[in-house]
């Protein structure tokens, strides 16, 4: 909870080696997903002659920009399976990685504001229970007991009519998560190379055999793309298309406050999500900008909208100040589900399309993607998330159903 101390950093995190001329596998993108993939490649598949290439600084992309919400209360079986697997991994990873990244299971509430919301929420609670995901329906009074600062009066524009609640959900310190994975990767021999931008690929027929970078060409047998926001730019370099659109997504924090907000509150309908960071900032997120963008900044009206919603739900926030706002670039799909699997290019694999919600999936993305890269075939959990689903029509339509708009 909020009085948890920030952990001391181990004094050694990772080396900064020069890239070698060849690797057994190269992971493009040093965000949480790329690092988790490298970790599981090394740990579960014994592949240690591998590199993670990051064009900027380690985990400076969406990994450093997200609002850190972790939950697994997704509607469809395929999603519940992969996100719940991720949640189970979150529960054991601090010990496994020997690094306390303050995973705080303070619970997540998804508010309902209309009769439609109420029905959809109850349906999701039922579906979650059938899938072994902890879920409860709370009436407004129970909502108030769990989060006393929430306004449950019925004289506001969208009164709180109840909420779904997942007690095992919560938040974690995202940059510490990245550092935890990076440190273990490094220990296992993985080369983490920063300021190394992939600018093209070398192919032999339809097989990828190398990557071109601003630090020279690197030969490799396998390539895994973990470049959230830029997945389609890389795919195009490799000669194939992805059904991905990149959109700016913003978040903001207030100055530090005493602990006032004991859980995580999300509202799809009025569209804001709020938690309180370990140090005390109120952390808020909202929706994506409607247009395509790579500029890592978004529109001010989105912030105005989310603040209006936050102040109505939490009247005590009215006097809080916005300290910082920032944007990330998220790669969205039309069914709001990720794409993890093989590509039309041989030996090239893609993990993308996690949109606004991929932080929570980090451990499962890493585990399943590593399996897919090492064996050439998908893990049971990522099989439904293959690129082919857009052709077969077996979409996993989490739009709305996932309890937050994408």
């Amino acid at each position, binding site marked *: 909870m909020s009085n948890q101390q920030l952990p001391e950093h181990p004094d050694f995190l990772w080396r900064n080696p020069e890239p070698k001329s060849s690797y057994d596998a190269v992971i493009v993108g040093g965000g949480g997903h790329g690092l988790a993939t490298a970790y599981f490649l090394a740990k579960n598949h014994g592949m240690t002659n591998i590199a993670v290439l990051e064009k900027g600084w380690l985990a400076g992309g969406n990994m450093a920009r997200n609002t850190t919400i972790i939950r697994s209360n997704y509607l469809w079986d395929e999603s519940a399976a992969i996100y719940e697997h991720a949640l189970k991994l979150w529960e054991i990873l601090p010990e496994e990685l020997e690094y306390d990244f303050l995973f705080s299971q303070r619970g997540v509430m998804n508010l309902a504001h209309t009769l439609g919301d109420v029905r959809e929420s109850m349906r999701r609670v039922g579906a979650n229970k059938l899938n072994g995901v902890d879920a409860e329906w709370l009436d407004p009074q129970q909502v108030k007991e769990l989060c006393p600062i929430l306004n449950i009066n019925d004289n506001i524009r969208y009164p709180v009519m109840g909420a779904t609640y997942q007690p095992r959900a919560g938040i974690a310190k995202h940059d510490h998560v990245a550092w935890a994975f990076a440190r273990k990767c490094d220990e296992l021999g993985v080369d983490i190379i920063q300021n190394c931008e992939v600018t093209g690929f070398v192919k032999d027929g339809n097989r990828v055999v190398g990557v071109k970078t601003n630090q020279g060409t690197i030969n490799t047998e396998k390539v895994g793309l973990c470049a959230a926001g830029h997945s389609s730019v890389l795919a195009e370099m490799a*000669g194939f298309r992805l059904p991905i659109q990149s959109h700016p997504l913003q978040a903001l924090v207030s100055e530090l406050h005493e602990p006032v907000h004991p859980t995580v509150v999300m509202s799809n309908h009025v569209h804001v999500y709020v938690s309180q960071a370990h140090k005390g900032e109120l952390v808020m997120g909202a929706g994506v900008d409607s*247009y395509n963008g790579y500029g890592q900044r978004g529109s001010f009206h989105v912030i105005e909208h989310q603040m209006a919603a936050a102040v109505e739900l939490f009247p005590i926030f009215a006097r809080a100040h916005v300290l910082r706002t920032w944007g990330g670039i998220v790669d969205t799909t039309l069914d709001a589900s990720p794409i993890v699997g093989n590509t039309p290019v041989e030996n090239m694999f893609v993990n993308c399309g996690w949109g606004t919600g991929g932080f929570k999936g980090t451990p499962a993305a890493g585990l399943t993607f590593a399996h897919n890269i090492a064996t050439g075939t998908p893990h049971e959990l990522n099989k439904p998330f293959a690129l082919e689903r*857009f052709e077969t029509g077996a979409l996993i339509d989490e739009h709305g159903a996932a309890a937050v708009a994408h």
Partner: protein
Amino acid sequence: MLLIPCPNCGSRDETEFHYGGQAHVAYPENPTELNDREWAEFLFYRDNTKGAFAERWLHSTGCRQWFNMLRDTVTYDIQSVYPMGTPRPAPANPAVPDSGTASTAADSTTTGAAAPSTSATSITAPEGATK
């Protein structure tokens, strides 16, 4: 926040508009002849250009007319606005030189090895048949 020059009403705040995604994507001319792959391309695959991008906007709370716009997806500079049904104008300033922020050239979609032009794979047909 974008200030969008509606061709009918003049410059208005972004909140008055509705985004319509990639421009110049026409309904297939012979739908019955499309295979699953081609349908997938039409329904789900759109260009996601980093740089100058032709897209559609609807002035929903103004004249309620659709129009096309060429916008840089990195700098968010609006390069031109033109009517539905007319071809994409040549970029006024192909290299987008001193935009201040990250150059689009460095990441331009043609830097890759042997990357085919995606517009060759997208379904383009006579204009005006969109949406």
